[in-house]
């Protein structure tokens, strides 16, 4: 055993590199974000809380079918309405419920929605959905989906009732570049 090896063995000199490394990290900028005071900005495509617009909805039920866990419940009925003096049959929405507590925010409903802009979208940047009551607070009826009563909206995102258009409502990513 050479002297150098002996010294390394006894004094653990091979560990100094690691100590040096951690000491250097002490000086670097900290990665912590002090959350309630400062929050990270979700990206435009971030899938968060639902926005819903009853005016845009054509009651096609595509979202209901697309939902893999079937948490969207839609009821509608046909109604005679006058459009430009002509009588037309139109689907009218009676019920549009989303059981948000079971939602996994996969965004397939938004992808399935055929209207432009989308009648349902998740790009609202809003993610603070914690509540004290599991059943009541996270079951959203049609009106509540639009008024966002009791939801802490992401600052800068107005509640969907104001006709807010999400940044990328249609998954138009393919056309974005063109």
């Amino acid at each position, binding site marked *: 055993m050479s002297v150098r090896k002996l010294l390394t*063995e006894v004094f653990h000199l091979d560990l100094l590199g*690691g100590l040096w*490394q*951690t*000491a250097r990290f002490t000086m670097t*900028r*900290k990665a*912590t974000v002090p959350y309630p005071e400062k929050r990270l900005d979700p990206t435009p495509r971030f899938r968060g809380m639902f926005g819903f617009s009853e005016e845009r909805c054509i009651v096609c039920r595509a979202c209901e079918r697309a939902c893999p866990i079937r948490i969207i419940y839609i009821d509608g009925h046909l109604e005679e309405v006058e459009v430009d003096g002509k009588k037309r049959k139109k689907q009218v929405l009676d019920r549009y419920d989303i059981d948000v507590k079971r939602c996994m925010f996969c965004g397939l409903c938004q992808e399935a929605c055929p209207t432009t802009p989308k009648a349902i979208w998740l790009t609202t940047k809003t993610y603070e959905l914690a509540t004290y009551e599991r059943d009541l607070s996270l079951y959203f009826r049609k009106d509540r989906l639009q008024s966002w009563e009791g939801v802490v909206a992401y600052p800068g995102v107005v509640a969907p009732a104001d006709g807010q258009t999400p940044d990328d409502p249609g998954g138009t990513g393919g056309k974005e570049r063109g």
Partner: protein
Amino acid sequence: MTNPWVVYLLVPMVKIVVILGAITLAAAYLSYFERRLVGFLQIRLGPNRVGWQGVLQPIADALKLFSKEDIIPTRAEKLVYLSGPVLIIVPALVVFSVIPFGPPTNLFGLLPQAIPPYLTDINVSVLFVLGVSSFGIYGIILGGWASNNKFSLMGGLRSAAQLISYEVPMGFAIVAVLLMAGSLSLVSIVEAQRQAHVWYVFPGFVAFFIYFICGVAETNRNPFDLPEAEAELVAGFHTEYSGMKFAFYFLAEYANMVVVSSMATVLFFGGWLRPFPSWGWLGFLDVVPPVVWFLAKVAAFLYCYIWFRGTFPRVRFDQLMALGWKVFLPVSLANLMVIGTLIVLFGGGR
């Protein structure tokens, strides 16, 4: 000032209260500094919410632990289970009765005569420290056994094995210092370093190295934190302890860290002496009170503890044993022989 009531009761009582309070507070705040520092090492902030920069965190923790439900496992051995925390905290605090924090002082003239800022100086204080601090192991073993939990039991057994293996090289490392100083009293050892014009770390670097590593192992700290290895034994011997009983184990661990650091300071780094006590041109350093020198040195060792924790993986049980018996024991013995020979040849520091 010759009233025996004052000399033998009042002064020691005041000292006991001050030291106990200071040590408990220091141990609590050590946990805060550890969390902060480890946080910094790990590019995060650590606790910074309670009070300014989180300085009230230990107090919040204490309140939380006080208000926690006191759980005793149904099939635990009650008496032993309850005595575990006592057995570990008492020796950890008793040891401080002989640690010399500084030379006798009259507190800038506040007191009529200089009194030493330590409780007592007994002529075998090194043995006292070694003996009493070894008692703490009973708290760990009995607590681990009485919890009626296999992980606790394994933690306790690991701790026992670890203590036995590391007490021996640690003792030999200290004997090297005793040879140089020629005394078992901690105060005399510091004074001997003043007279030798050198801290013992320079002639006894090997002894210091072995002492400190063994100290880390004895206090069950990373990378030798096997008795409470989180990934293996959940929480080791204190798995089943909660509330204040857990807090005692916690406090004792930090108090033991302070003991090991204080002993390293006294034995190898000249206690309260300033660096190079014989170099006259460094005399301007004397404006710093000796107690501050002492505390600064202890703090440096505590920083090393925390630094190690933030850096190293945990060694395995058999490697820990091998390191103690196969590396440190022979090296400390050889070191002892070398130092003894040198003292015989050159008259040593006496």
